[in-house]
């Protein structure tokens, strides 16, 4: 579809932003908006004269669409949790619950995008690159994986840290080796631990009653040695306290279906994470000993950030293993370490974040070993 007046508008202001123009130094910024509104008219020159319609913008937009079920459910759950723990449960209409959560999430999303995109634009401008759309997904992911009570200034710091240290110092999107959204989460976790764990951070208080509301996540309860009070069904649906948008297995599964169907995410990694986590859970079941070890293995899938991490974080192609065999190993080990950390390390109630970050670091090594086999095969062939 072509819209003439938009094209004419951009054609008219383009000289101002081109080299030699008054605002020539803003070229990358102009480019970002131009390519956002109008797909570029660049044509092929050689090689494959026809090209696949997919590009990185399209891939990112699919990820964002896949995040929507979890995001929308998360908004509702924020309101639901507040309503339930303030005793207002019956009085709040579900739309009101959603609206409450929406108003809670909106500033977080806005802060994340504004801070992150400002840095992205500045770096692109400085380097003379095109602005990479990767942050459109990262910027949405970050507010979805933090507690709802995270102060906005902390969020802003975390986003800045993630974008600069997690990504731009390595050369920008595609060059980083750690998942930027998890870098932000890890930054918050280690810099402001009191705001990231405990019983008082998971439920938003109302504007009219400013006291923090207590509400433990299932994993918080397990870490103290008691069985989780929420049922498996609650966890499946997601009506439990937790980080803003990570609680609903079903909403995440909807996103996962889209990612797998479109081929954007690797099914090997996703399946690998669940297999690894399940195997480790079964192993602990066989050993037994405490409530956490005896927990049915599938609870691990439902609690905390396991599913969210497996679907949206582990599958980030830039930071995951790149070979097919490597993806299996990478996924399996993420699952194994996540459950291992949960059950055996009392300092970290949630193991998913650290497990994925650790495997991000290991991914190049895994690939190296897989590729080495191919190299060996070739050497043997010469030998014979």
């Amino acid at each position, binding site marked *: 579809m072509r819209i003439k007046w938009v094209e004419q508008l951009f054609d008219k202001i383009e000289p101002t932003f081109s080299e030699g123009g008054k605002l020539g130094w803003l070229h990358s910024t102009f480019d970002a908006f131009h390519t956002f509104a*109008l*797909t*570029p*008219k660049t044509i092929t020159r050689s090689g494959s004269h026809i090209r696949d319609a*997919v590009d*990185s913008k399209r891939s990112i937009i699919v990820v964002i669409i896949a995040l929507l079920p979890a995001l929308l459910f998360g908004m509702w759950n924020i309101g639901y949790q507040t309503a339930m723990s303030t005793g207002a449960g019956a009085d709040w209409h579900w739309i009101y619950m959603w609206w409450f959560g929406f108003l809670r999430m909106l500033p977080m999303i806005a802060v994340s995008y504004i801070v992150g995109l400002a840095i992205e634009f500045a770096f692109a401008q400085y380097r003379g690159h095109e602005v990479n759309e990767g942050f459109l997904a990262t910027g949405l992911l970050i507010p979805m994986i933090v507690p709802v009570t995270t102060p906005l200034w902390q969020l802003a710091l975390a986003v800045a840290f993630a974008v600069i240290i997690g990504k731009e110092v390595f050369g920008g999107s595609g060059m980083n080796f750690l998942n930027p959204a998890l870098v932000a989460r890890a930054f918050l976790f280690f810099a402001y631990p009191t705001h990231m764990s405990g019983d008082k951070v998971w439920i938003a208080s109302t504007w009219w009653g400013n006291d923090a509301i207590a509400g433990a996540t299932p994993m918080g309860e397990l870490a103290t040695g008691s069985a989780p009070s929420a049922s498996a069904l609650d966890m499946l649906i997601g009506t439990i306290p937790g980080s803003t948008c990570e609680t609903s297995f079903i909403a995440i599964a909807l996103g996962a279906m889209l990612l797998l169907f*479109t081929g954007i995410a690797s099914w090997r990694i996703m399946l690998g994470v669940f297999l690894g986590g399940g195997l480790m859970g079964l192993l602990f079941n066989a050993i037994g000993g405490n409530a956490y070890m005896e927990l049915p293995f599938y609870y691990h899938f439902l609690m905390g950030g396991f599913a969210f991490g497996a679907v949206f974080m582990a599958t980030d192609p830039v930071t995951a293993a790149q070979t097919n065999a490597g993806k299996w190993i990478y996924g399996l080990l993420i699952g194994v370490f996540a459950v291992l950390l949960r059950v055996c390390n009392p300092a970290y109630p949630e193991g998913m974040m650290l497990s994925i970050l650790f495997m991000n670091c290991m991914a190049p090594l895994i690939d190296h070993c897989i590729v080495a086999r191919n*190299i060996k095969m070739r050497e043997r062939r010469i030998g014979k």
Partner: protein
Amino acid sequence: MIHNIKVKKGLNIPLGGSAERLVVDMRGTERYAVKPPDVVGFIPRLAVAEGDSVAAGQPLVTDKNLPQLFLPSPVDGVVEAIVRGEKRRLTEVVVRKNRNIQNHPNNQNSQNGQRVLSAEVPVWWMIKERPFGTIAHPGHRPKGIFVSLRDTNPLAPDLDFALKGREHEFDAGCQALETLAPLHLVHAEGPHPAGNIGTQIAQISPINKGECVWTVGAQDVANIGRWMLSGVYSPERVIAVGGPAAKAPKYYRVTCGVDISRIADVQTLSPSYPCLGWQASAADTRIVSGSPLSGTQVAADGFLGMYDQQLCFIPEGDQHEFMGWLMPGLTKFSFSKTFLSGFLVKLSQLVKLDKLSIPYTFNTNLHGGRRPLMFTGGFERVFPLDIYPMQLIKACIVGDIELQEQLGIYEVEPEDFALCEFIDPSKTDIQTIIREALEVLRKEATA
């Protein structure tokens, strides 16, 4: 030896405009050209001047490094033009056919009246060598000669159809080639790139460092056979002419190096041709000599490429689209299922409906901005060789020759990466990267 191989990985691109099984004879065309840039590693030295009379098979240019290699005139005639491009690089030697000049059967290269296939004969340039894709080096001992009996490129000619009536010439060509090295005729089943010779060699006998194989196009085997039988150099091919912007796709019987202007005149669509919602003019059609995945753009008054057996007419895509990345994309084709078209096709497969046929629109638009190689897993699904494509591409980008060798650079040619380049969401010019890496290796090997 005849091989039947099966390939699973790959992709058939549903590019519209495949040729109707109808052959138009265009052997009467007046002008022909040899194009040295089409021949990898060939450094041309002119053997004729403008206005010279030449017989078919007589050298027009010879190779500076290996003077016995030459590119012959495809017809009897007069050298009409010597065309140079950038930096005075010789791009074309144009010959106008003249019937007064006679092509005498060439018995120079015969032993006891029997013709011998060697570098001195006019059909030698049809034999290519891998690695690097140069003309076969007469001093090399190839471990085999490979001929693909199927071309799986989009809109490529059906070789059985193209060779109909030339079976005896094909057989004679095979016999001649067998005198040089073991001959492998390969029939491949499966999606593109099953028909690519690189795919087939990789399955049958992958090329190791220090080895080489020779390859010949199936139609050129028949051309070699014709020369062996009669001593007359009359190289012809049946080419498939098609593509989304071709008016009446069909086959043409031509002599190698043919001037395509008559075909272009007939095939180019009238100016008001609707394509992707906008009006394209005749100038907005790109003509590609060779596969749309790896061929060369030629002008409407240009010539068929040296080794090509198809012409593809594709609408130019130098148009903006409003928020194209957000649109449902009902007629866009993508290997990923990120557009509605792919969703519907997959859905129709899932519910076992008849295969949904979508009128995909193709043009030469890049469909996006260039990015770092950040998406993984796609290349492996369309790349059937036992090679890690992403890792090899990266080794080529950084210029790590040792790593390239370890990862199997000698087994590939740029065309083997054509599908990777097609599906790449980062819009990297992968074939150029591979070609440049191979050129560095080739220059080192010959230095």
